[in-house]
């Protein structure tokens, strides 16, 4: 366990940025924090969550896959990928850190998504424990402990110091290069911080939410539930929940005619959109109710069924905060879960 005074944290950032790209969450507009490439003078946000999740680093909203160069009647195929630089993401919360594992199960299983794999290999994650969880947080529902946030390096803020603990080899390498700035320290302060966080967790309004009613094998139980109708009736069919979600991993592949060729790129898709998975025969999910159901069934039933019981939600609460009509997974879990008891 090492620590550094919060007053010197900029020196730490500078030292990291000297070697590789560093991204920290910073305020970009009133009430909006985003990960930005660190530059001298940039302050870390006080906010708990960035408005978008950290999945962008490995699975960006748009990504070029291949270019076709067209000249007259000739077509050349070009791989647009360039050498990826190493980078550090600082201040990832436990929920987002956990989301990478969920994404890994999708993108790193055969056939491996080499675009994702490449970015994942170049990134080092420094997590930060959540000193002040929000009312919308429910990560503990999915067994995540924001007091021990994981990642390659875990960090805690307490009483003017930033405490750092390497978790993985990558993390140890990162910290070893920074040893000049860091001092060894006992673990008491961090233990106290963990206790404080866990104390707050118990008091969170969503503390009692459990996923027990869900998991693999529940498809038949919920698929035809009457409740989907009233749950989904206000859904606007926008992609807010999907795009702020750290675990949503669906994408669309599109071709863009650049005038001198075609760029094939992928971009996030949302199961809430009416053209999601649209095929020549039409759309398999005909109404918003079905599209709405897809999102939650995927996170709560289909994903665990295919992934050893792990849920496709990390309880970050972004969708709870951002949904324009305040309809979210918590409400879905509570409403459908009523049947269980």
């Amino acid at each position, binding site marked *: 366990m090492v620590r550094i005074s919060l007053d010197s944290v900029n020196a730490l950032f500078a030292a990291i940025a000297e070697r590789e790209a560093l991204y920290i969450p910073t305020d970009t507009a009133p009430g909006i924090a985003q990960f930005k490439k660190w530059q001298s003078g940039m302050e870390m946000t006080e906010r708990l969550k960035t408005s978008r999740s950290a999945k962008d680093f490995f699975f960006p909203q748009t990504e070029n896959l291949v270019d076709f160069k*067209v000249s*007259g*009647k000739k077509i050349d195929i070009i791989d647009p990928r360039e050498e990826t630089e190493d980078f550090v993401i600082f201040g990832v919360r436990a929920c987002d850190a956990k989301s990478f594992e969920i994404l890994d199960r999708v993108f790193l299983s055969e056939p491996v998504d080499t675009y994702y794999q490449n970015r994942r290999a170049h990134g080092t994650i420094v997590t930060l424990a959540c000193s002040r969880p929000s009312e919308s947080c429910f990560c503990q529902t999915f067994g995540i402990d924001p007091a021990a946030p994981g990642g390659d390096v875990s960090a805690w803020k307490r009483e003017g110091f930033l405490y750092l603990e390497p978790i993985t080899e990558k993390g140890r390498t990162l910290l070893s290069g920074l040893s000049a700035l860091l001092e060894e320290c006992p673990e008491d302060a961090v233990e106290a911080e963990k206790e404080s966080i866990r104390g707050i967790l118990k008091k969170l309004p969503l503390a009692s939410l459990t996923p027990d009613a869900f998991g693999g094998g529940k498809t038949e139980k919920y698929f035809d539930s009457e409740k989907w109708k009233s749950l989904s009736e206000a859904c606007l069919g926008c992609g807010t929940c999907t795009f702020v979600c750290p675990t949503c991993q669906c994408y669309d592949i599109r071709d863009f*005619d650049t*005038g*001198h060729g075609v760029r094939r790129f992928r971009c996030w898709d949302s199961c809430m959109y*009416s053209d999601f998975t649209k095929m020549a025969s*039409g*759309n398999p999910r*005909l*109404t918003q109710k079905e599209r709405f159901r897809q999102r939650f069934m995927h996170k709560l039933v289909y994903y665990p069924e295919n992934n050893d019981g792990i849920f496709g939600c990390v309880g970050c609460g972004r969708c709870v905060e951002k949904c324009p009509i305040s309809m979210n997974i918590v409400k879905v879990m509570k409403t459908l879960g009523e049947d269980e008891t």
Partner: protein
Amino acid sequence: MQKIGVFVCHCGTNIAGTVDVKAVAEALSHEPGVVFAADYPYMCSESGQNLIKDAIREHGLTGVVICSCSPRMHETTFRKAAASAGLNSYMVEIANIREQCSWIHKDMKTATEKAVILGRAAIAKVALNTPLTASETPVTKRALVIGGGIAGIQTALDIADAGFEVDIVEKEPTIGGKMAQIDKTFPTLDCAACILTPKMVDCAQNEKIHIYAYSEVESVKGFVGNFTVGIKKKARYVDETKCTGCGLCTEKCPMKKTPNLFNLGLDTRSAIYIPFAQAVPKVATIDADYCNMLKNGRCGVCSKVCTAGAIDYHQQDEHIEEKYGAIVVATGFNPIKLDNFDEYAYAQSPDVVTSLELERLMNAAGPNGGTLLRPSDKTHPHTIVFVQCVGSRDTSGCGKPYCSKICCMYTAKHAMLIRDKYPDTEVYVFYIDVRTPGKNFDEFYRRAVEEYGVHYIKGMVGKVMPQKNGKLLVRASDLLAGEQLKIEADMVVLAAAIEPDKTARSLATMLTASMDTNDFFTEAHPKLRPVESPTAGIFLSGVCQGPKDIPETVAQASAAAAKVIGLLVKDKLKSNPCIAHANETLCNGCSSCERVCPYGAITYVDKEFRMPDRTTKIRRVASVNAAVCQGCGACTVACPSGAMDLSGFSNQQIMAEVDAICR
């Protein structure tokens, strides 16, 4: 798979002089979809056209691009050539490399580069062209003329003369309009009735013409060639087919105190009446507002005296529907109401009259049998003041902003006639400008001044004050003399501005014909299509389109008739296929397109749609009438969902051109 042929024209040296045509053909031959590229000295020559035709047949071309002169020049030529080789004529696009390239650039390299880009744009467009066919609609060979004044009469006579059926709808009991009320016409001073009434009789006797007098248009549906018009025949309480027009009833009717509207209320008539002696149809009409029988069931004199048994107190309005191929609007005008002009004391003194009232006062069939007498005391007026521009050229909001055009001339006529008949009467004309553009017009006006001694004074009347002695004190400025005049006049005549008939506005809505802010109908083009409304099949005749005198009205009436005849001789109407069409699945039914359409080509229908969840839903969607749409494309931009597109100039095509140019 596209198979596009590119043909580059040298146009002698017109193009080849500055554009390397061979290089253009070579460059374009590598474009996607191009299977054939050639150049030729004169593409529009017969052998040039044969080159195109042969290539279409030989290579099975699906599209043709011709790099040549402006499409305004030879588009039709090349379309015909393509069609004769079995390719849809709308699969041809032209790259204008002469007017817009070779002729404006001197440098060979620059011009060649540009020509290639223009060629590429045309190729990109033609690749998205779809075969189009002009749609055909049958034509109902019958015309409707709305309004039975001189404009309507002339139009109807001319159309009938060409052998087509034509109906006149006139809201008054007789045709004739304003001209029937006029005494003499300028600049010839011949009697209006003498030249008008023969035409009225011609109308009545022409078997191709049917007159719906005392009738109004209630509804108009359909489009050019195929209008369905609802006509209301107002109850006359006299059976038109039985009435002989003998006039006995009008003599015997006890209700003699009915205002005579034909004489503008200057005298009275009976409740059952024939507007004037030469009325067509010469049939009596009962004025329901004054007839005792109709009001309280006590009288019935006319019924008793009528030997033909034509009186029918129980007659009801009759509603008729007729089909027409063309409609002519000839709704005419009225002098404006003078309520806003207190300063001229029109409401206070009966001796202040409008010019039209003066016409009646001077007319032999008028209230005084043709002798000019003051309405108040029936004495001879010795001083008469004419005021010009009463409500014309008035932007203050009281009158009309435009010049009423006819007042200068009829005032000169009035002044001259009065001086001629009553040389002891002094006549003053206050004018702002005297406007006399027209054959023999200025000469006419000068005669009034020089031969008849009419006092023309540059200036305006500021106030007319009725005096205790029955005279009218006129205060006016004489701008040239720089003095304020005070004239004691016996009569004041106001040249009231004219305005379109009040019924025109609602009619325009029914016809979807556009109007300007003054309620004059707008013409399809102010210079080149002055007798057509922008709405296809609707034509304009007379003052409904703008102020006019009689010869101009008659000229326009005949012109409108010529246009109608040109339409009615066709058995079928072929329409430009480059028109808008709505994709019903995308259409919101929001009416944006309908509101910008200048032709009223868009209507809405309720259609049943299958929803994604297999339910059905009835939605309101736009439908474009192919016969009416002219293909401007205003609707395509007004449409937010992109449901409206224009054949021949589709969104995709224009964007492909943009892309090709910017590449």
